[in-house]
């Protein structure tokens, strides 16, 4: 009498576009530890900053929708270890920030330093007061959850099969419609940038929006292409939703560009010098002079609002076939993840089945760099040495 095999119940895996797929592309091994094992990062700096910005913008939009306070909103952040300033209004960026910080603190996330916190408030204030007047009136649906199911491509012969034939993909976006776009002033920077990026738009359409708590990538950086895929895939997901309109474009808002710091300017100057910056200051403008003269150690220049908005707003035209093509790229990423999962399950070990492929910046900050067998620059000849104290 032969026993049967234990049924492995086929569960359709769920993937978050940003949380899973982009993380895996950044580094497979880091993804395995942080996402697969849910190991928390030792210094959740990016986590804190990104979530702070999202939290403030989300709350600000809710307040704007219900009470519509006039811009600019005051910004009086609470000093560290001091009581909140007296007399702050509900829409003060400091009031909003306190609530968001309290939520993050309760989750164990804190800003790494006073400087990081201060800069976060500067960026949040800029986002609300400089971007908000252009963005908020355009939003027809905020924090829309988009979910879709896609087939996982088949494995090549000899490769382990994925856990399931399907996967579920989800994300959260804000949605703008042509109705809103048509009603705002032509001087609205976002409307203007969309129309410039997608000339001849007509009929009923939607534009999807996502915030990025990061700088605008150079066009040669992997993130440039990955963000393009992300927008297209969100567009594909959005069109699966009942009662949605065709998506004509995606808008990425790189919040850091509203208040750049030293590292951002270093990267911008490098991109300009090697021709991979798509938005540069107008030649001969005050912005151009300031940027050209700037060196690390100098104070950050006051760039003009139009320049900062141009750097912050990236419009990506979308059509049905480009959306499908991008989603197909992510299908491959999912297949890669599934094959890693299967290989690990078969062998019972982890490290040899998940590629470490991070860039220099990712590896430098990675919690697992000390025992990674192939850190950046991934020569394959790395010798692991004992980490130093601390």
């Amino acid at each position: 009498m032969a026993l049967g095999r234990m049924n492995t119940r086929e569960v359709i895996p769920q993937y978050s576009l940003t949380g899973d797929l982009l993380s895996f592309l950044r580094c497979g091994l880091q993804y395995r530890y942080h996402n697969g094992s849910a190991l928390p990062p030792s210094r959740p700096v990016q986590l804190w900053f990104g979530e702070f910005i999202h939290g403030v913008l989300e709350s600000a939009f809710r307040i704007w929708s219900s009470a519509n306070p006039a811009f600019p909103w005051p910004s009086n952040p609470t000093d560290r270890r001091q009581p909140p300033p007296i007399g702050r209004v509900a829409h003060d960026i400091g009031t909003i920030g306190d609530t968001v910080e309290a939520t993050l603190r309760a989750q164990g996330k804190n800003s790494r330093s006073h400087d990081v916190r201060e800069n976060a408030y500067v960026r949040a204030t800029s986002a609300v007061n400089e971007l908000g007047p252009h963005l908020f009136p355009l939003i027809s649906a905020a924090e829309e959850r988009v979910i879709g199911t896609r087939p996982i491509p088949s494995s090549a012969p000899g490769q382990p099969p994925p856990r399931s034939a399907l996967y579920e993909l989800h994300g959260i976006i804000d949605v703008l419609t042509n109705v809103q776009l048509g009603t705002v002033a032509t001087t609205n920077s976002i409307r203007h940038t969309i129309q410039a990026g997608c000339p001849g738009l007509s009929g009923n359409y939607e534009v999807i929006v996502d915030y990025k708590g990061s700088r605008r990538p150079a066009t040669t950086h992997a993130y440039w292409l990955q963000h393009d895929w992300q927008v297209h895939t969100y567009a594909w997901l959005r069109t699966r939703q009942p009662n949605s309109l065709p998506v004509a474009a995606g808008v990425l808002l790189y919040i850091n560009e509203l208040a750049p710091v030293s590292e951002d300017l270093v990267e911008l100057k490098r991109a300009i010098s090697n021709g991979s910056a798509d938005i540069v200051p107008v030649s001969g403008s005050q912005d151009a002079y300031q940027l050209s003269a700037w060196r690390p150690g100098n104070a950050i220049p006051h760039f003009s609002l139009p320049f900062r908005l141009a750097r912050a707003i990236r419009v990506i035209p979308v059509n049905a076939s480009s959306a499908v093509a991008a989603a197909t790229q992510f299908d491959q990423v999912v297949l890669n993840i599934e094959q890693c999962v299967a290989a690990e399950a078969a062998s019972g070990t982890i490290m040899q089945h998940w590629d470490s492929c991070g860039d220099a910046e990712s590896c430098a900050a990675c919690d697992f760099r000390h025992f990674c067998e192939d850190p950046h620059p991934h020569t394959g000849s790395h010798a692991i040495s004992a980490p130093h104290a601390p």
Partner: protein
Amino acid sequence: MIPLNDFIPLVRTAVPRFQAHSPNAQQQTCVLHTPTTPLMIVAGPGSGKTTVLVLRALRLVFVDDCMPEQIVLTTFTRKAADELRSRLIEWGLRIKNHLSANTPSNSHAGFAHWLDSIDINRFVTGTLDSIAEELLTTHRNPTDPVPVLVEGFVGNGILIRHALFPNQIHNDPQLDSYVTPFTFDGKPAWNFGDKVNICRTLLDRFVHDLVDLHHYQSSESHTQARQRMVACANTYRQFMSDGHRLDFALLEETFMHRLLQGRLQRFTDNLRALLVDEYQDTNPLQEHIYLSIVQQTGASLTIVGDDDQSLYRFRGATVELFRDFQPRFIQRLPQQPQPQLEYLTANYRSTPPIVSFFNTFIQGDPNFQGARVQPKPHIVSQLQSNGVPVLGMFRPDADQLADSLTSFLWEVFRGSGYPITVGGQQISITRDANGGDFGDAVLLSHTVNEYATQFGNNPPRERLPRLLRTRLAARGTQVFNPRGRLLRDIPVIQCFLGTMLNCIDPNATIQGTATLRAEAIRYLNSWRQEAVAFAATNPTPSSPHTLADFVQAWQSRTVQGANMHWPPEWPLLELGFKLMSWIPMLRDDPEGQVYLEAISRCIAQAATFSSYRSTIISGQGVHAENSVRSAIRDIFAPIAESSVDVDEEIMPHVPRGRMPIMTIHQAKGLEFPLVIVDVASDYTMNHQRNRFRRFPETPSSVQHMEDDLAPFCQIGPLRLSRNGLLRSFDDLVRLYYVAYSRPQSVLLLVGVDNCLQYKTKIRHVATGWDSNGAWSWRTQVPNPVPALVNNHPLLLV
């Protein structure tokens, strides 16, 4: 929409697994039951309740014009929710695609548009807690913060620090006396950790059982103690509320309040159907939520469960809510149509001998029948017999049992099969020819602890899971039992934590100034010793310096390899991640990841309430020492006192070559080709200490607590309709019923053979004793009586 009569044929055509096997008549009755009348489904083990739930939800979409986003399905665990969701998507897409390619000839205008508007991904699925959390986040006022869910370790840390200590819980003999019946063994709580657990349970019960606290604290018995508990509850609530924190109980309560206040209208306005799985594990608060939703929305309600598989009373589950669902619904919602009851009794999981065995078992105790849904038909196997009866393996002691069990498993999974003789015929039990392995079996027990509780200075006794582990390891095979050892006892974790301690606090100088309980001190010291021994082995990498050098550098706060000052602040988690460089299991073994996640979660979560946020300060006066002391008190000590649980759900697959060991609770909802149930490996004597696990003489602690709270909550009188002792027996019967209904092909009971003696004193519900003390495995005969009991249903091997 499609006509109702076309739905089952459509399912059969569109979904491959139903092409060969249609849903059976009972399943069809449930799926096709009108949505306008509430439906209660009593679903026996292996009867396909997930199939029924999913098809019913899909029917509501394709026949009754509900949209998926208007349908909520809840179940008890994340895993169950994932499985439910996967089937919904998979089958829903197949049906939708089939209809799209084969438009019915009698379809209405707009059919294509309607079909296109169905987004299968929009079903609202999850546990009630996950759905509540999502809704409270999405549907909040503009200035409301996002609620933060805290659980387990953090919740208890907050409870201890901000509610129990301020209210002097640790210092109140009257409270000690009050909680004594609620301890595991009915004796006074012997450590602070036990008292904390009882307080946590009480506070959760206050919420789940909708206890009237005013009435509770006015009671004439234990008045002061009750008042102190209510004060704790209030202080705890205030602290949680001030920090925008919710634990699971408060999450559900907040959800209920918002529902009743009409603050979730965007959700309720759109809700047309509610399907609740595992309803036998509902608590009064959850019942209130579900019935309030139905009252507000008129949504179609379907509940599914099995009272015989209710195992979670200790977590507040109230089986009476399921058993008495019909009258309770009618009383609460008299204007609504009365619920209809349907059964699913066809079992597709287990062979006839196994089904017969557990049918006989569940019907064996006449006193138990009053606890069940009435009537309760028996379960009917749909499989062919494989000729293997229910087996029993009993030996004179646990060591011999472990030897024999190991041989059995080895012969099945690595050998040419294990021979048994049935009715004169020899049958060989073999692994599946196509990759059968240890992963096709499971050992189930009431507890998977590898060591029994230690008494005095004797070394703790090794239990069957441990004995099996060492014997299989000797043959090169591992077990998978992540809950079998407390984190603090796992060798690799001992080295890991001990090394961290030695780094941050050389010679335990600061540890000596922290107020720690004896158990914690014992473990911290033991870990430090293990760590020193480990460093002495000079593990790789040992260049450019050794692990011992690293530890020494930490101890003197001297930076290695660079000319810079020691940083003023360093996350403890980062130290831990660095140490993974020397401990391969923690970086390369999936089971090691389970342990590492528990430790790192503990460190990260401690940051939410610990004074120095899980960082080690240097060079800032008293803060340096205080930060170490905080880490010891808030991270290391709780692990030493077993306050931190592993989460084995993060392990994507149990490697098939490992032998799984789990508690019966963990196995609920699962099935295995071969199930080994440890009924009696611990019971060499009729010891008073173990009677509550097999044949209680007094009500268990859970029943005592239910009885104590009964006068102060609406559910109380219903619970008291069966006394505490009977309810204790009920829980044991259900526990072993779940165990016995897990196997597909072979069920093997194992234990020490004392319990099989004709004259045994070891009474055990699992071996056929009923609560009156009658033993169905024994037929009374005159002296001289046989040595072995003479009516057992097992084939002994």
